[in-house]
């Protein structure tokens, strides 16, 4: 284990399933004994934490897990059980949506903009304390320290038009060739300026089920090529609902006098996501639906899941802060 390794170590277990699997990952991943019943019986938070750890093996992994663990069959078997469970749960929440016969991009935009979930950003704009904002940022850091990565998994699964458009969008997320402009890096710099840890997953132990599930859903949609429509629909909803709330955050962060780096991070998203939302709806999702009509409904499913997960996190956070949502 090198001292310059920027990867995290495994988080704390949250029940008997994660306890057993984390232990096996540290010592002998290939020797893990799969027990489908134990996986099925795990408490939601225990299962979500386990899936988060297993999917993380496909990103940068952990200092204390051998890199061979990602592809060990018994480890993959547990991951697969948990992914199937998660997808079934997400689909059970999805009320369905008629696939539009014309103007897919407008219909998708409308569907996303009709969402009226609670807004943490509006609360930050006018009321939140510094302590509350730091909590929000610690929860968001699970995603933002690897911002854009989950959608990148979808790139090789796409047809020509959506592939070119996603590559263009991601190029901007990844700093357009400049390492110091990577969005994940801008977020890390802001975390450091606020005195917070920049190690990915550093705050995982304090994140509730809703944050784990939100991250797990994005990784699932990205990693499973069958779910490419959901992955791109999720991306579209994320981008369409980013710019205006980022503007609220900019004003809230200024009101509190927080570090300029975090103000800059959100100010960058006001402008960048006014481009990304157009690319995601018009050049990625609408063309994907045309090229692969059987993916069209899943685009809406992915968009719904993004909005639903965001609303669940917002209700949990605002509830903790004693704000009615």
């Amino acid at each position: 284990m090198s001292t310059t390794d920027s990867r995290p170590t495994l988080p704390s277990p949250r029940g008997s399933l994660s306890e057993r699997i984390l232990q096996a990952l540290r010592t002998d991943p290939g020797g893990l004994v799969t027990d489908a019943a134990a996986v099925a019986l795990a408490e939601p938070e225990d299962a979500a934490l386990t899936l988060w750890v297993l999917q993380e093996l496909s990103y940068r992994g952990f200092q204390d897990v051998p890199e061979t663990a990602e592809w060990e069959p018994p480890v993959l078997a547990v991951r697969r059980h948990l992914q199937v469970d998660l997808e079934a749960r997400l689909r059970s929440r999805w009320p369905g949506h008629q696939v539009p016969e014309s103007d897919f991009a407008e219909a998708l935009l409308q569907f996303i903009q009709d969402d009226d979930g609670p807004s943490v950003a509006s609360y930050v704009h006018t009321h939140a304390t510094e302590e509350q904002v730091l909590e929000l940022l610690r929860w968001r850091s699970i995603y933002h320290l690897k911002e854009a990565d989950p959608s990148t998994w979808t790139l090789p699964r796409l047809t020509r038009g959506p592939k070119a458009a996603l590559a263009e969008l991601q190029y901007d997320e990844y700093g357009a060739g400049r390492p110091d402009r990577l969005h994940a890096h801008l977020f890390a710099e802001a975390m450091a300026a606020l005195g917070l840890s920049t190690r990915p997953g550093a705050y995982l132990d304090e994140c509730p089920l809703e944050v784990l599930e939100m991250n797990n859903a994005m990784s699932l949609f990205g990693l499973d090529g069958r779910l490419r429509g959901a992955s791109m629909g999720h991306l579209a909803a994320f981008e369409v609902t980013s710019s205006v709330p980022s503007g609220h955050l900019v004003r809230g962060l200024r009101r509190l006098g927080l570090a300029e780096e975090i103000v800059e991070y959100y100010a960058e998203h006001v402008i960048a996501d006014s481009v990304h939302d157009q690319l995601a709806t018009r050049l990625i999702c609408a063309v994907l639906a045309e090229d692969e009509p059987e993916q069209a409904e899943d685009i809406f499913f992915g968009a719904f899941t993004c909005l639903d997960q965001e609303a669940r996190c917002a209700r949990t956070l605002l509830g903790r802060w004693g704000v009615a949502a």
Partner: protein
Amino acid sequence: MIADDVTLDDSGETMVCPGGPLLLRGVSSYTDEAGIAHRVERPVVAVCRCGYSGSLPWCDSTHKRLPPDRRPS
């Protein structure tokens, strides 16, 4: 209307988004109607067409909060 008369400094491409901005791809600067050149650092930029952006000449998604009949067509 802003950005009706786009001046591109090189062989950029454009795309009009109904109700929203004008996207410009592959330009290194954008000259607004007052003749002021703005440096472009992204692969694609969104130029405001509604006139209400707080970050002109760029779109900041203010158009999303306009009633549909006030959005650019």
